[in-house]
């Protein structure tokens, strides 16, 4: 059972990471900065629980807020540019964050043990959960409550004007601006929201794995973060959820029985999915099919 709970944990923070990229993708921006916010959340909340012995909840909260503030500040310069330029600029940002943590050494003794981030040696002993007697299902419960809240909020977003505005910007920036939408500030707010979610995810990650180092927060993870909404489809937030289950659950964990060939199949399957579903797994037809099946189509649309 422990194993499946463990996988649920992993799925949980990847879903949140995917959501943070999803919000920005709605506005048409492909950002690889999410992993930077994820790292900030991980280190900030880890430092708070380990070095300052905070309770987990305020630590997660502050971690998320710190990442959100950073996203807000980076959003100002970064979101003036778009497309491929933004991809590169956000890679630059994520790498700067990663390298700062690579150089960060902040250790002192707590209860006779020297703890804290130690540069390339990583940041060990983020054992709040285990040390405070949290059973794994409780951790999973915490993570998935966050995921559920985020999912509901993002689903709700599509029912209200704010969501329509995000998608309008993604569809045609010039027309959106001429229709009276302050595109830049909307994008910055989206970036900040994405930052908060990624920071939260990072905090949960750090405490679930008990150890973080800069090698975790590479461009590879950033690529995964944008892959989830792209593979899942931008039509609905459930696309991202489905893609995380598909990629992390099925391709990475579920195919273990394939042994050596699992990782090769991974790339091949992504290519296959994109050829048959270029708009992602959960595309228009999928949504239509589901909603017709549930006979909810009247309520869902509009």
């Amino acid at each position, binding site marked *: 059972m422990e194993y499946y709970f463990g996988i649920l944990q992993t799925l949980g923070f990847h879903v949140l990471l995917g959501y943070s990229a999803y919000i920005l993708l709605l506005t048409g921006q492909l950002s690889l900065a999410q992993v930077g916010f994820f790292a900030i959340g991980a280190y900030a909340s880890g430092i708070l629980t380990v070095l300052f012995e905070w309770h987990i909840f305020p630590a997660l909260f502050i971690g998320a807020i710190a990442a959100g503030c950073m996203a807000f500040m980076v959003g100002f310069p970064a979101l003036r540019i778009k497309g491929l330029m933004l991809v590169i600029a956000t890679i630059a940002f994520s790498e700067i964050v990663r390298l700062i943590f690579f*150089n960060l050494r902040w250790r002192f003794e707590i209860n006779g043990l020297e703890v804290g981030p130690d540069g390339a040696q990583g940041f060990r002993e983020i054992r709040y959960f285990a040390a405070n007697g949290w059973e794994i299902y409780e951790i999973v419960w915490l993570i998935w409550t966050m995921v559920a809240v985020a999912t509901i909020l993002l689903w709700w977003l599509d029912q209200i004007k704010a969501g329509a505005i995000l998608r309008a910007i993604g569809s045609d920036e010039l027309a959106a601006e001429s229709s009276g939408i302050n595109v830049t500030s909307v994008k910055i707010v989206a970036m900040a929201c994405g930052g908060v979610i990624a920071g939260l995810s990072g905090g949960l990650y750090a405490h679930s794995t008990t150890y973080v180092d800069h090698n975790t927060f590479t461009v590879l993870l950033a690529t995964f973060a944008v*892959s989830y909404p792209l593979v899942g489809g931008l039509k609905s937030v459930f696309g991202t959820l489905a893609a995380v289950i598909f990629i992390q659950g099925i391709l990475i964990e579920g195919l273990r029985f394939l042994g050596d060939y699992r990782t090769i199949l991974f790339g091949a399957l992504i290519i296959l999915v994109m*050829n048959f579903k270029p708009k992602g797994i959960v595309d228009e037809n999928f949504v239509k099919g589901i909603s017709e099946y549930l006979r909810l189509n009247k309520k869902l649309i509009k």
Partner: protein
Amino acid sequence: MVITSVDVIQSIIDGILYGSIYALIGVGFTLIFGAMQKLNMAYAASSIAGAYCGLGISAVLSLNLLVTFFLGPLVGGLIGILVYLVCFRFIPSREHLGSLMASIGALFLIDEIIVHETDGSPLNFPELGIFSEAYFLVGEFGFRGDLIFVLIVSLLAMTSIILMLYRTKYGLAARAVSQQMNAAILCGINPHKVNASTFFLAGVLGGLAGCLAAAAVGVISPLLILPLTIKGLIATVIGGLGSIKGAIIAGLLLGGFESLFLLVRGVNERDIYVFLLLFLFLVFKPNGMFGSIIDRD
């Protein structure tokens, strides 16, 4: 250690020479971007894969190892066509993100196939014969022979590609397809054929770049893929999207700055400064050095 002006200039020379590899990869990205307005993330991976295949074929057939430098580009070109077929050909052209994601899938696939076949261990790569031994001393400054060779090759490649784009029928067709796809189709041009040729051409260039990069390092390893992808993209973007000249200059500059910051600030902080500079550059000059101003009404 005291850093003298000689050290500074020497490190910039080293960096710029090494930057010619970034420039070559950048040119490949630029070619594909110019043709389709799309990003092929698998490009650096297929370049390295081309070099691996060249090395493998020469080893299996016990050919002269220098044949690698002809086989690598050829296989690189073929892999380019393959990537085009699986990631771009059948995905509707307006689905930019779909083919982007597919090419990321191809990056993982190629990377993992290489890892699987070689167990990820670095392999000795044939050096560039006399060039690798050559080390020119001009006054107090040293120049690596093989990297000068790489630089010359990348300049030649740039010239021949520009000639090809502006002087040949293929070039005319390629430019027509990239600018006015529908009009080109009406003129009887098959855009898929033209795009496939562009991917082949870029692939050949990539295979060459992969071989030269591996030869310059002396070993080939899947670890080369990610840095080359990122550095190549940076060169493409700083140079200005679609500008071949820009990609070359940006690649060289990138190498120079890297080397300079390494000397002055050490390896742990080197990339912080490089990326900070990159970030600021993009913010203040979002169209790159030679990019046309895009996105008007």
